[in-house]
């Protein structure tokens, strides 16, 4: 059994003269939550469409659960569920009938499967409603339910929280976390909302202009972007001198606006505050911060020097 749910080796996809994906290498381990990050047109949806079989690669090799021939990939897709762009359903029939249609189509035994996914995505009380009457958020949940029919081992989700209200976002996030944790489902998802992705993904693939800029685990990002204390004091030069003398640390940076970043702080935040007051310096700002995914992504887009 292969350790990877999905792999892309030197995959290229062109639309006419436009190269949507350019020799992309992506590996998604089983059980991972893989977050695809990138601007509009970076190639995220193209990659997800390739995995789902909607489009074909011009070059390179795609693999699903270790299989890469077209016929085998189609076979392996029975183990996947996908929501690409807008969720697909028949608007004139009810939620329940849509799911029953997909259950039969996928060959999933037992009508209970429909009730189970309805329960899972929080649509059980709306199962008799016609799909065209659903709100955007409910449609998004229905799309997820359609993808989840038949207990897939790999979920491919393109912007799954688009259109959801704040409580919907939390519910879907919790659901995805639960699916990953309890059922060990591999999830590949793209999102523009990096703060959300940050709470879900265990691995990131950063795409810029169709190229994979970096593939990195959440832990590696954490290691690379260690947390820091940001402090604004009245006399930064004197403060850093005291800092070196008292705390024997030289891992700090003084930014042009005189803000001091103390990287990998050894003491708790109060110690740095006391250090200023004991030496009669005024503090206008003091906070402990960690580099966010947004900051990391923006840095990567700008050449990736800061957290390299």
């Amino acid at each position: 059994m292969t350790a990877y749910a999905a792999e892309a080796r030197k995959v290229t996809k062109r639309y006419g003269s436009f190269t949507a994906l350019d020799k992309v290498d992506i590996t998604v381990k089983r059980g991972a939550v893989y977050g695809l990050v990138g601007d509009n047109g970076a190639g995220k949806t193209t990659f997800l469409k390739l995995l789902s079989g909607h489009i074909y690669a011009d070059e390179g090799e795609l693999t699903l659960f270790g299989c890469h021939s077209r016929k085998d990939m189609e076979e392996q897709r029975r183990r996947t569920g996908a929501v690409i762009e807008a969720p697909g359903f028949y608007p004139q029939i009810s939620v329940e009938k849509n799911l029953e249609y997909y259950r039969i189509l996928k060959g999933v035994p037992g009508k209970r499967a429909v009730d189970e996914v309805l329960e899972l995505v929080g649509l059980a009380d709306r199962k008799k409603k016609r799909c065209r009457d659903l709100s955007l958020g409910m449609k998004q949940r229905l799309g997820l339910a359609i993808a989840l029919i038949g207990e897939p081992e790999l979920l491919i989700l393109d912007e799954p929280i688009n259109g959801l209200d704040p409580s919907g976002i939390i519910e879907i996030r919790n659901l995805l976390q639960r699916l990953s944790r309890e059922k060990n489902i591999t999830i590949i998802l793209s999102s523009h909302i990096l703060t959300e992705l940050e709470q879900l993904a265990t691995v990131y693939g950063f795409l810029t202009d169709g190229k994979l800029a970096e593939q990195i685990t959440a832990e590696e990002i954490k290691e690379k972007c260690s947390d820091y204390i940001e402090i604004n004091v009245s006399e930064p030069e004197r403060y850093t001198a005291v800092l070196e003398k008292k705390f024997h640390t030289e891992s700090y940076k003084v930014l042009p606006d005189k803000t001091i970043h103390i990287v990998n702080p050894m003491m708790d935040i109060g110690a740095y505050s006391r250090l200023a007051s004991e030496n009669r310096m005024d503090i206008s700002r003091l906070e402990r911060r960690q580099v966010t995914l947004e900051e990391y992504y923006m840095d990567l887009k700008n050449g990736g020097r800061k957290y390299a």
Partner: protein
Amino acid sequence: MLNYIKGEGYRITHSRGMYVAAGIASGLLVLMNLVLYISNQNITNFPYGLMSFSLNNLIANLQILFISGFVVAALLFGDERKNGTLKNVVAYGIPRIHIFIGKCVVSIATALCCMAVILVFYVGSAYLLLGGPAAEPLGKMAGGIGAAMPSAFAAVILGVALLTLFEKDVVAAIVWFAVMNVIPVICYYAGFKVEILRKIAGWMPWNIFRFEVSANMSGYHCLWDTPSGLAKCIIAGAAGILIFGAAGILVSRKKEIG
């Protein structure tokens, strides 16, 4: 493929679309017979209040079965791109060829069911409301439908292939009409000047059922009444099934879902 067909069967039977379409078509035909009946009751020496006149409308225009077949396919699958349902089917790992063949099977089965219902109302209302002999027009109609069936299947298959190829239904409809009607009619008339076109046009289903059949008040001349004529109808239809089927398989294999 069986699951796909079963799934589509579930969806069609649980949606209103086909019931409404069959209902409207049946209603219009009953209305036609009703108009003939009322005219017959109110106009002295009205010559058309006969069952044969009513049924001749179909016998002389069996191409209507081709158009109906395309309409059924378009009603069933025309919106699948807009609704985004095709991408789910593909993402579920159902091979594109199976999807294409499944669609053809489902469209043909649905069209046959609709036709059966419509014919019951059409023939039933004609029988109940109109006079004149019933056996001959009924026999001609049954024979004609049988003879046109392979070509009607081909028309449905072409429709499914074009609906797969083109993003917009209207484009598929125009191309379908061009292939089924415009090109055969052009070939037919060009055939008066060019011998090879005359031969080709003679094997095109639209021309067979338009120009080689006559059904009117003075009698019938139906190609399918002779064994060789019936064979021509069936061979032309079978060739259409093979050609359009192969084209459809090719298109469905290559076509990407945008």
